[in-house]
């Protein structure tokens, strides 16, 4: 399957600070009866970036992007999309914002090319449906009815429909849920290709690997509030203090040698490896201590902090757990 265009450009540099945000959300609040879906959410999306909105199911992610899309009226706060308030003036926003929502099916007997041509007809300046069919690798399926598509193909069509209006901003909500690993990876390549074609993307997800792979920046929402924001690497680093590395030693070692080092906080054996955690200087301290005994590790591997770990630390439970 040839989804990734061969002329993939490197990602544009993540927004210079002088660029105006294309989406601004400030103090957003939305309740349904007694239930507070979004308590207080503020963030900005810069042109050309992929911003991830992370959170567990029910954290308020979808309600937030629905308010951005003008599908929900907020109880409080302001939303601005390219300078327009979608709450009060949704019509012009719909022209420039493409939305892929969870659980939005198409009529079962509508065919791929028909759906794209139909949706293209709603917009003033649509993309060529045939180009999208090619971009999304749906050529073989162009005359296939929606009900006969696989999960991954439905998602690709859904993304194509979100892009057919030639939007400047696309909201993609949980688009890899229910896909197999192969289809997920293909979808990720596709999202990068879309961003590289100049579309700013708001990606709603509860998969940390997806956010880590795709997003330039992420915000973490829990219980309707923003807990943290930054690049995935920044968040991951913030979630872990100090450094962890694993090494393989040519011979058994007196554990006290390393445990006595002030910068070492913990050690454990994992198979033939020894995993050591500690303060910022733990790696050179350990290597020097080993060197003084004439020991040279066969292999040393620093363990990068993961976004998953940071998320668990922030939210207090694993991301894939479904509280509902």
């Amino acid at each position, binding site marked *: 399957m040839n989804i990734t265009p061969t002329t993939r450009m490197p990602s544009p540099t993540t927004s210079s600070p002088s660029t*105006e945000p*294309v989406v601004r959300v400030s103090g957003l609040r939305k309740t349904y009866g007694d239930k507070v879906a979004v308590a207080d959410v503020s963030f900005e999306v810069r*042109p050309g970036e992929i911003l991830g909105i992370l959170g567990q199911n029910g954290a308020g992610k979808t309600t937030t992007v629905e308010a951005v*899309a003008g*599908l929900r009226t907020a109880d409080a706060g302001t939303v601005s999309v*390219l*300078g*327009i308030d979608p709450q009060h003036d949704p*019509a*012009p*926003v*719909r*022209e*420039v*914002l*493409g*939305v892929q*929502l969870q*659980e*939005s*099916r*198409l*009529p079962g*007997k*509508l065919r791929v090319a*028909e759906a794209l*041509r*139909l*949706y293209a*007809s*709603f*917009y*003033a300046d649509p993309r060529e449906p045939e180009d999208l069919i090619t971009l999304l690798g749906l050529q073989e399926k162009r005359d296939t009815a929606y009900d006969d598509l696989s999960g991954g193909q439905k998602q690709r069509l859904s993304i194509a*429909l*979100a892009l057919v*209006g030639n939007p*400047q901003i696309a909201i993609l909500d949980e688009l890899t849920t229910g896909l197999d690993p192969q289809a997920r990876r293909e979808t990720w390549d596709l999202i990068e290709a879309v961003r590289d074609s100049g579309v700013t993307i708001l990606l709603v997800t509860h998969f940390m690997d997806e956010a880590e792979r795709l997003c330039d920046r992420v915000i973490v929402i829990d219980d309707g509030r923003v807990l943290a924001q930054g690049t995935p690497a920044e968040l991951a680093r913030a979630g872990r203090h100090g450094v962890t590395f694993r090494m393989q030693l040519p011979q058994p070692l007196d554990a006290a040698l390393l445990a006595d080092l002030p910068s070492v906080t913990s050690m454990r054996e994992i198979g033939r490896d020894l995993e050591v955690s500690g303060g910022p200087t733990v790696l050179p301290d350990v290597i020097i201590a080993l060197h003084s005994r004439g020991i040279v590790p066969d292999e040393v591997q620093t363990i990068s902090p993961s976004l998953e770990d940071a998320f668990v630390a922030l939210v207090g439970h694993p991301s894939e757990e479904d509280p509902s």
Partner: protein
Amino acid sequence: MTAATLSPPRSRTGTRGLSALIAAEAKLFLRDPGNLFFVVFFPTVLLIGMGYAIPGMREPITDLPEPWLGLRAVDLFAPLMLCVAAATGGLTTVAAYLAGYRETGVLRRMATTPMRPQGVLSAQILVQLAGVAVGGALSLLVASLVFGTPMPQNPLLALVVFLLAVAAMFSIGVLIGGLAPKGATASGIGMLIYFPMLFVAGLWTPGPLMPDAVEKVATFTPLGAASQAMNDAWFGLGMPWLQLAVMAVWAVVVFVIATRTFRWEV
């Protein structure tokens, strides 16, 4: 990134692509065998079935006064089939489509585009209306060609009755579709109303064969009134003012309730 890119011609927003949407809904209608059978062919199939399967349907009537003396029982069913066509479209397919489109997120997805979800409903209803019109016309054509059934003596009145019957039935369909949480639920509720409607319309006791007591009640039901008024138009029995008023009131009142209670979201 300037605000200038955000000024589409406002007057076109919401209607752009409506003709494409109607064409797409028409294609989808034709691809659904259930639609084709029930909306387009069912009244005709029912008429042929009645005409050939039930003994004596094609014998001249001898025990009824004018204007029915000399007609055959099957002739009484021709006007009734127009009412059946209206009820089938409104109560079975319209309700199920609307609720199904909400249930599966078709309306929600549409709401994210410049096209409004109301556009999908309008397109769908327009297509169903065309289906009902074709279904009704087909049953008349077959009645005339196969059974030699006379055509209405007052065709204009017949047309008005047909339109009012369709309006009343479609309003009920929109009401059900707007409230039922799922397509299947809407379909079930529609069926629950459909069969009593066919009963009061006289499917089992057509025209003059309906007992007086039932007929008095039926006058105040939308399809009972339609059937009685259609008979009057067919056999030249005068102006059915009461029945026309009953249908109009049903159509308007139910439609107003339907538009106020329609749930756009799951």
